[in-house]
């Protein structure tokens, strides 16, 4: 394990990372946000969901550096007296969870379908690609909205909260699989004609084994780059859906929900309720995008 890790550290990818300041900053930022998000239960200064700890009298307090601010609520409070910093941390967790889950789902579905499509060829390939092409011409947000809307109509009102998460993750994942499928299919087509695949076939190794054990590792590079870009898109899509009111239920708000709630206070001067979640969202997405950009350049064989 140590040997593998030290080999990685000496490799080209790690070298590139060490020498790209932007990548280092982005990774560190992401790390901080990850820790803040998933460690929220332990390190958040307040628990915004515990009604017992919320004091209505502390509502609408500005951040600590403003006139009326206090160190108790570093980034101020919202209209109910909930600490914004803590809400941010929990919100980031929700946003990240959904984003990561959606990317995982899309990647799973897309990679498998892409492998099958590229390897099997013929009718199956044509069918899968046709579906992917048609779906690609529709923007992801529309597909996600539709799935969400239909689920909302089909499922009775009291079940809405329970199924909100899976539906959201499923909608974003379903909207995103074609890109993976297309990419993996392309790489598979190239690898399919390589000698190592033909050799494996000659020895009699079954197709699924060839696909997953031999071809898959070779097509993972572009998939990784796609996944980082997709993560950024997924987070934005979830935030947009939550902002529109059709995303996560209000009981576990994501950054998008927080922004929506805060929007109502924009005109009355309590800008922090919407701006801080907004800043957190931008920081998150920006870091992911920067990392994705670096990864794409580092893995590009022509730019070495």
């Amino acid at each position, binding site marked *: 394990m140590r040997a593998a890790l030290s080999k990685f550290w000496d490799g080209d990818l790690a070298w590139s990372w060490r020498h790209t300041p932007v990548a280092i900053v982005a990774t560190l930022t992401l790390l901080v946000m990850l820790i803040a998000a998933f460690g929220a239960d332990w390190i958040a200064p307040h628990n915004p969901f515990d009604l017992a700890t919320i004091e209505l009298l502390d509502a609408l307090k500005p951040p600590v550096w403003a006139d009326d601010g206090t160190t108790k609520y570093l980034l101020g409070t919202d209209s109910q007296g909930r600490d914004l910093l803590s809400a941010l941390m929990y919100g980031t967790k929700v946003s990240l969870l959904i984003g990561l889950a959606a990317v995982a789902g899309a990647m799973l579905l897309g990679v498998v379908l892409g492998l099958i499509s590229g390897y099997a060829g013929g009718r199956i390939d044509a069918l899968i690609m046709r579906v992917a092409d048609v779906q690609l011409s529709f923007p992801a947000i529309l597909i996600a909205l539709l799935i969400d809307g239909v689920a909302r109509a089909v499922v009775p009102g009291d079940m809405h909260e329970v199924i909100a998460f899976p539906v959201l993750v499923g909608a974003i994942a379903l909207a995103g699989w074609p890109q993976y499928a297309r990419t993996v299919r392309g790489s598979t087509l190239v690898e399919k004609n390589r000698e190592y695949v033909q050799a494996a076939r000659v020895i009699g190794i079954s197709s699924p084994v060839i696909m997953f054990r031999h071809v898959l590792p070779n097509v993972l590079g572009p998939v990784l780059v796609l996944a980082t870009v997709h993560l950024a898109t997924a987070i934005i899509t979830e935030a947009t859906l939550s902002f529109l009111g*059709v995303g996560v239920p209000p009981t576990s708000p994501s950054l998008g929900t927080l922004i929506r709630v805060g929007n109502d206070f924009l005109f009355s001067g309590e800008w922090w309720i919407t701006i801080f979640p907004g800043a957190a969202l931008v920081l998150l997405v920006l870091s992911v995008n920067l990392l994705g950009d670096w990864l794409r350049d580092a893995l590009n064989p022509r730019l070495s």
Partner: protein
Amino acid sequence: MFAFIIRRLLQAVGVMLTVALLAFILFQYVGDPVMIMLGQEGTPAEREQLRRDLGLNDPIIVQFYHFLANAVQGDFGLSLRQGQKVSSLLRDRLPATLELSIAAALIALVIGVPLGVYTALKRNGKLSQAFLAFSLLGVSLPTFLIGILLILVFSVQLGWLPSYGRGETVKIGWWTTGLLTANGWKHLILPAVTLSLFQVALVLRLVRSEMLEVLRADYIKFARARGLTKRAINFGHALKNTLVPVITIMGLQLGGIIAFAIVTETVFQWPGMGLLFIQAVQFADIPVMAAYLCLISFIFVVINLIVDLLYFAVDPRLRVGLGKSGGGH
């Protein structure tokens, strides 16, 4: 070439039929139209009458046929939320969305393409780096956040521009336009900029990466080896080859713009189809959702068709079969 057009048209019809089927399924099986329309009141006899009136007792194929026939004429029934005809609701809202979308698309093209070319040609300049950083920010900011920020700065703080609605509009036939009044223009600016920002960033990065790719091609190397001027190489050869794939992507992006108008219209309370759709989703107003779906699909399919034809016109390699193929050695 005709074979190509016929094939694409058939494909388009196929897609539309599939979408119509989806919409039909939505209509029929999601929620009970009779329950929705009559609610808890209504005797069993009334319910049965309504069933027959709506044709719900006919075989599925017949129902689908009726649905199609109505759909082609633009009749999608009544909105569950507002009780008006869906088609008239959509018709009223269409101009607002179209004007917003086209404005955003134009901004994206006019700013995105030249900047993309510039950052490709002057790769390492300070200005290029700045534009690239800006473009990264552009794709990292969700559209609704951009809208909120612009409202905060230009409406709340500076008070220069309005943040709500379309302003004064002029009615021409069934079309309402906000472009003929100064007030209408003022209302258009913030939403159009909001909607276009993501696209500007996207187009910039796209054009840049395409152009960088093209500049690495062998025919560019050969052009340099022939001593052609920088301008001839960059604009005559590289740019022309760059724009060909960019056209397709831009065309497809138009569809994305129309969809993202949903978010922009929500933030600015712009009375377009997107706002209508979102309200339909929140309310589970199936007829409106289904109709919006069909209309948007139709627009996308038409755009795709036009883009394909454009590609055909622009890339001589696709016109194989029309001219003589090379023979001999």
